[in-house]
């Protein structure tokens, strides 16, 4: 990069007035600039972090009597996050008398997403068709009302599953984000994050092959 300055030798002869070259040595300036650029490139936060919005159901106050909402058992899908990114799921309702074996899956594209997609195909197709219509220009809609239109589609849906998301005690925060993310990928209309049941805890422990720790609570909690 640097300019190599060679000394020119004058052999004898007439002494001429020394010629000063008009070029300024820019090497230090370039050096400094390189340094500054590197510094700013490294400190710049280009990718701003994104946020994922989530709303939890309001907590039931202790002395408040609220009837648990009635939901169809056939539409219910329970997903339990286990340790080491393992995902368990079972349909319907847990029966304390006979522990249903849990199905195990994972977070790959063919794992839990496929399970959810299979159950949510009707709604998913509706949303996708709506989106492609918008892209193709068949439906004229503003960008910001697209989201609310999709929300409306989800609201009107009554075929998709109702997903209950539960966490075994050794699950990680990553699983929490991943599974909620999965809900938005597949376009699940109704999903709830709830506490794990003691029955389900036993079911997970059986699936993991470790001794059961949870027992039935003496008084029914809910």
């Amino acid at each position, binding site marked *: 990069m640097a300019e190599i300055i060679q000394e020119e030798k004058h052999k004898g002869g007439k002494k001429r007035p020394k010629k000063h070259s008009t070029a300024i040595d820019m090497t230090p300036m370039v050096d400094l600039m390189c340094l500054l650029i590197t510094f700013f490139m490294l400190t710049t936060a280009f990718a701003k972090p994104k946020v994922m919005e989530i709303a939890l159901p309001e907590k039931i106050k202790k002395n408040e009597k609220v009837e648990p909402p009635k939901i169809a058992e056939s539409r219910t899908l329970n997903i339990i996050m286990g340790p080491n990114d393992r995902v368990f799921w079972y349909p319907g309702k847990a029966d304390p008398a006979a522990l249903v074996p849990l199905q195990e899956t994972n977070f790959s594209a063919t794992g839990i997403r496929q399970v959810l997609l299979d159950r949510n195909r009707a709604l998913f197709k509706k949303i996708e068709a709506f989106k492609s219509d918008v892209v193709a220009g068949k439906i004229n809609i503003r960008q910001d009302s697209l989201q609310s239109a999709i929300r409306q589609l989800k609201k009107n849906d009554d075929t998709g599953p109702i997903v209950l998301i539960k966490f075994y005690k050794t699950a*990680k925060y990553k699983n929490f984000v991943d599974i909620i993310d999965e809900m938005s990928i597949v376009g699940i209309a109704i999903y709830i994050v709830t506490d794990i049941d003691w029955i389900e805890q036993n079911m997970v422990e059986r699936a993991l092959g470790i001794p059961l720790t949870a027992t039935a609570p003496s008084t029914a909690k809910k």
Partner: protein
Amino acid sequence: MPKIKIPHKTPHVDMTPMVDLFSLLLTFFMLTATMKPSEPAPVDTPFSISEKPTPDKNIMTITIAKDNRVFFNVDNGPDTILHFRPKILEEMGKRYNIVFTPQELRYFEKNTVPFGVNIKEFKAYLAAKENEKAKFEKGIPIDSTDNQMALWILFSRQVNPSVQTLIKGDNDVDYPLVKKVLDILQDKNVNRFSLITSLQKVEVVEEAKK
């Protein structure tokens, strides 16, 4: 035979275009630079497909680090004339019978960094030098006996009702701790919040199965 004289020239590279380009780049980076806020603990956020950018004002951020320490931060944007931060700290101090001096309040207002400091050590933390602050960052107590996190949330919302809640958790944080934080938020009637994630595109596979 006459010798062929090689012209004695200095090898001269014209650096002007390079300098031009560098100046341009430098100007660009200097103008777009928003400094990465310093963090008391490194946090690896999980990935999601959400493309919603993080709001940059009226937010309170709860950071959960890998080592189960919980941090808190309130950021009301750069140009607030309402001085929310010192008010929150003052309220906190009142609850614990600590009086903060105006200097301390001003210092707290200026330095919007996440903190994981017990309120009882807050005075010492504010007075400590930049490189000695780390030893105070033990995480905010969230136990039911001394739930300071709940109070921070409460006062932040009292002082600035439009504050949004952000949760920034590390990938490897155990879920029960997250659940505890969520419970505290819900106790304080915060049912909507945002999780800070990094963007990751996912191709949705809707294989044609008929």
